[in-house]
């Protein structure tokens, strides 16, 4: 009950930290998508590049989040942005790359050869084929990648409080420092709640953006 009372008492701050959290995750997801999806598509056309790109994204994933935030500080300090939201968002964008690039790459690669062949043979340009056929067919898997990235980043963003980025991580960090269990649990609870919420939201987006023919295909395959 102490947790609910804590949230009630600090409602203004809770809302503020929540909005900060969502802002960081949302912005990093938008930037991450803008980089990752085109990159994932590009490497389906350049086979020798694919391995390198995916491996790089893999390596980024293996760096512990606290270390990555730490690494961002001296690098971004060069442009005077060593602390706060900028290094946090940059790190989140980097983390989101693996699920986004890998899912996009696999989804486009898995478009049946016969479909691609028919399209090419009928005189579709590469761009037309991508727009009309490959991307729509790949859509559910691409969105699934974004979904993974979003949920993962909600968790990782909580750690960004350590580099002064704000967000719900602030409660966890300060709670630990001040040995204030209600504060820690409030932060953790809200982060989890957001993760579940966003996961559900993205599931809806996935459903809406999947072409009906592909949905039917999956239904009938069951």
């Amino acid at each position, binding site marked *: 009950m102490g947790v609910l009372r804590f949230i009630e008492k600090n409602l203004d701050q809770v809302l503020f930290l929540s909005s900060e959290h969502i802002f960081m995750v949302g912005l990093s997801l938008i930037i991450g998508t803008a980089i990752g999806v085109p990159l994932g598509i590009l490497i389906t056309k350049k086979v020798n590049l694919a391995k390198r790109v995916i491996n790089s994204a893999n390596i980024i994933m293996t760096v512990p989040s606290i270390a990555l935030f730490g690494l961002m500080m001296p690098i971004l300090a060069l442009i005077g942005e060593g602390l706060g939201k900028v290094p946090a968002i940059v790190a989140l964008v980097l983390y989101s790359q693996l699920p986004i690039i890998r899912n996009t790459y696999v989804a486009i690669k898995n478009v049946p050869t*016969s479909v691609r062949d028919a399209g090419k*043979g009928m005189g579709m340009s590469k761009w037309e084929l991508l727009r009309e056929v490959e991307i729509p067919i790949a859509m559910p898997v691409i969105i699934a990648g974004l979904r993974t990235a979003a949920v993962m980043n909600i968790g990782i963003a909580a750690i960004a409080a350590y580099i002064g980025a704000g967000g719900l991580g602030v409660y966890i960090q300060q709670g630990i420092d001040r040995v204030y269990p209600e504060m820690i649990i409030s932060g953790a609870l809200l982060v989890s709640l957001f993760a579940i919420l966003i996961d559900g939201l993205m599931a809806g987006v996935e459903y809406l953006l999947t072409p009906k023919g*592909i949905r039917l295909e999956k239904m009938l395959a069951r």
Partner: protein
Amino acid sequence: MICYDHLTKIYGEGKNAVTALEDVTFSIEKGQTVILLGPSGCGKTTLLRCTNRLESITRGEILVHGQDIMDMDVIQLRRQMGYVIQDIGLFPNKTIADNIGVVPKLIGWDSQKIAARVDELLTMVRLEPEVFRSRYPVELSGGQQQRVGVARALAADPDILLMDEPFAAIDPINREQIQNEFLKLQEHLEKTIVFVSHDIHEAVKMGDKIALFDKGRLVQYDTPEILLTRPKNKYVADFVGADRALKVLGIILAKDIVNLRPRDLVKGEDSAEDVLKMMEEKGLSHAIVIAHGKPLGYVTPQKLKYKKGQVRDLVEKYPVHISERTPARDILSYMLMLDFFTLYVVDENGEFIGTVAYNDIKKKVKESYAGDLKTD
């Protein structure tokens, strides 16, 4: 018209080089269906894919309507050729109507014109537009999907159709049907068709000419009849099979062997006695009874003995009707099954045309094989 001129295709380089096509030269006349035939790995599909530049050409050239395809814009080239493949490759994310309308949409037809064309094509391939227009590929059977595949290839009315084993993945019963429908379609479409097949039956049935390949070389390029009756060498003879005399039966149609003036014809109103007398004089075992241009059935001397009245009341019905387009293979099969060695041929309205007899089929096959004995 398509001309293949000393076409060579080599995959890979140096030690790993594989020659898929070697010095292939032949040409396909406008409006003809040419079957590229051969076992897998003989280069037939490669040749087809060179035609719309899905494969590059190593040496030689391909001329379409007299123009070198390498000088043409590749997108334009492909859009003037319909392309149908074995795996069909319908776009699963698009409705049937959108699948068929892909090329018209790319070349900028307005949506009304596309919709009208889609309905026209669906009707042509015998799928009801109201039912199928808004369905998705996954909701159709394999046979239906390939009908859509054919419709899609025909959408922008290209002169040329490239078909890569289009009916190979369809079950035998549906295949037969879709082949027949396609033949009927082609009768008034008059497209130039390049058709890859590994099935000699299909080749004989569908082709105006057959190009038989072996290890990237063109071995024989002839009409199905010549290929079956005068194979150039042992490879061709083996490929068409020891039963090629039976395969010839598939290209001989009833109209080729029909006897238009049979002597065993009697009128319905003739009297039984007169007919019996006539049959005994001519030594006929049976006679076909005709009334008002339509065949009623047949009579035999046994049946007419001691009978009076008109023969029309004494006829026995024939168990089958033969149409002009029935192949000799089917006719012969009926004859063997029914133990009946003369059948009659009727036109679409059921009017009597003539008769086919076992001996006519035999004579025709023998004629086809005249001069063929040395190759066996």
